[in-house]
């Protein structure tokens, strides 16, 4: 589904991603872990189309197409969804209105009929239950005055409504207490399916107790330095990132190990 080859990305002249390779197939959940500053969020935003990042080298294909020639919105139409680490708040735009506008613009591109306000509300109410969100938040301005947990639930609600084929969750666990984490994770798990892949970016392994990945990659200084199965996350938790960073570089994987 997604194939990243020898990717180099910089911002303001500083190279952040330095030769990254990743191969994600239908239905797989990949965790990308790494210390602060390793390039995790850069990768997430770059894949979603953020224009402040500059491609230096490499390629990204998505469902066989060149992802990097698509605009931000085209990527969304093609089924890419980024759950933001820090979702912006937008005073003046109602949450439900954004959801419906987004839903219908994606439906339109997929040649599906748009839903009217009534049908859409019914659909959303069902999805709201999935993330155990207070439905009052639908009538409020987007993320405006939301708690950290409410913002993250709102991201997962958007994901549930927009039904992406590739979801990138950028530190969805940050700022959540255990209860909120459990709710968000169960929402994510409910959305796992055979033709939908996920990239779960996290600093801590605790999220991976709830969203169990098929693969774990360790990102350090812009490269994947180690890949493995879910046990790798446990090992990282025990030994810390310094354990990886001490290892010789160059261990980035093109082909993923299976059943480590």
């Amino acid at each position, binding site marked *: 589904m997604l194939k990243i080859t020898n990717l180099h990305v910089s911002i303001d002249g500083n190279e952040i991603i330095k030769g990254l390779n990743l191969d994600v197939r239908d239905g797989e959940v990949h965790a990308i872990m790494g210390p602060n500053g390793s390039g995790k969020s850069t990768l997430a935003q770059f894949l979603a189309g953020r*224009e402040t990042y500059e491609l230096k080298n490499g390629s990204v294909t998505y469902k066989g197409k060149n992802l990097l020639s698509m605009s931000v919105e085209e990527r969304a139409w093609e089924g890419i969804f980024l759950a933001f680490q820090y979702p*912006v708040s937008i005073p003046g735009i109602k949450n439900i209105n954004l959801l419906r506008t*987004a839903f219908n613009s994606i439906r339109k591109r997929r040649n599906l009929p748009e839903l009217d306000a009534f049908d859409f509300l019914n659909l959303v109410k069902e999805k709201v239950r999935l993330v155990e969100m207070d439905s009052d938040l639908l009538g409020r301005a987007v993320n405006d005055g939301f708690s950290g947990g409410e913002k993250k639930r709102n991201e997962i609600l958007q994901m549930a409504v927009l039904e992406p084929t590739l979801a990138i969750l950028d530190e969805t666990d940050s700022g959540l207490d255990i209860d909120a984490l459990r709710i968000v994770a169960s929402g994510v798990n409910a959305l796992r399916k055979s033709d939908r892949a996920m990239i779960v970016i996290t600093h801590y392994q605790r999220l991976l107790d709830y969203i169990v990945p098929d693969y774990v990659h360790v990102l350090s200084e812009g490269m994947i330095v180690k890949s493995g199965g879910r046990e790798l996350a446990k090992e990282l938790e025990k030994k810390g990132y310094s354990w990886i960073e001490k290892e010789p570089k160059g261990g980035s994987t093109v082909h993923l190990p299976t059943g480590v």
Partner: protein
Amino acid sequence: MKEHYLSYFQKQKDGLCGKEFPWLKRIREEAISVFAKTGFPTTKDERWKHTDVSSIVQIPFELGNGAKKEFSNSTLDPFFPKNSKEFSSLFFVNGKLDQERSNLNRLEGVKVKNFSQALREDNDLLRKVFESQTSFKNNPFLALNAAFMENGAFVFLPTSKRLEYPIYLIFVSSPTNDLTSFYSKNIVFAQEGSQASIVEMYVGPEKNRYFVNTATQIIVEVGASIEHTKIQLESEDAFHIGAVSVLQNRSSQFTSQSLSFGGALTRNDFCSVLNEEGGECSLNGLYIAKGKQHVDHYTTIDHAKPHCMSRELYKGILDGHGHGVFTGKIIVRKDAQKSDAYQMNRNLLLSKDALIDTTPQLEIFANDVKCSHGATVGKLDEDELFYLRSRGLELNTARNLLVQGYTNEVIDLIKNKNVQQHVKELVLQRLGA
């Protein structure tokens, strides 16, 4: 061009509205002599620093001849609320009252009438109001207005009368001659404990040049509550200079919204004097300038007495070569202790050639007060745009949604839901254009 107006006044004065009342003639003479002394303002005047009126001054405008022009309903309908039949309204077309389009069926004892009719029927009250006004001494355009005022509305709310439906005062301008000017004067008198929402609306349905000079005086008596919404949708080649002056008595409430979208050059003065204790005043506005439009708001809130509160929120959207000006003056007089004033002016610049001049002016002579102000100028937020696009919104849709969202903060302050809905539709029309 000062001479043009002085000699034109001499020619016209015996034919002006209310010529049979000596007191009114006296006021007109006094006003023109004030104007004779001051002439037109220039950018050297502190109050007109950012607004150059020479484009108005150089044209020898004359009074509208009232040549009635017929408009089809489809020309006018888009400007008015769909359920406007339910509202009271006075409808002026090119300076003349249009009886057929006016609707005075829902007045429930409230007086709403044409200026000339009010002069005949409510002469004493009008005289009292006019003789107490001094504001034309500091504003040459107001002096011209007092000299030439021809029509307008008189609204009188009796004691404790609460009107649920808004009253619309509508001025449609589309003269056949591009030297035409319209001078209107509106007076709202809200007796003790009365309450109403009044909309003053200026519409130029066609593309032509004219000059509107309008003055509104509002007296809010003890415990009365008035909401005033001024909607300016003049033709894009027209000039609009307006002033709203408010006098607030004990524990009265006054809320104002200025929606300024049309006109080539617009200047709006809003001034409220909190003349007795316990008054609350809220001045809000939304201005949109595109192309080469120029829009200037000069607001004054005068805390003359203690324990009054004022709130002010003006937001601007400036695109193309649009130029916005905002001045927010707050005066707290020496014995106006416990005054509470807050002012905010926010501006959104959508193009690199758009311009805003924003000036807060606080003159505080009391020592136990709470006053704060702020001003911001910004572009559309890149993070917000990226967020919306990542949800599948096209760049243009995302921009429009953000700009719309930006306007909601002001629209939400409109208390009367009918007016709020109407304004919301007009904003969408304006942003979509």
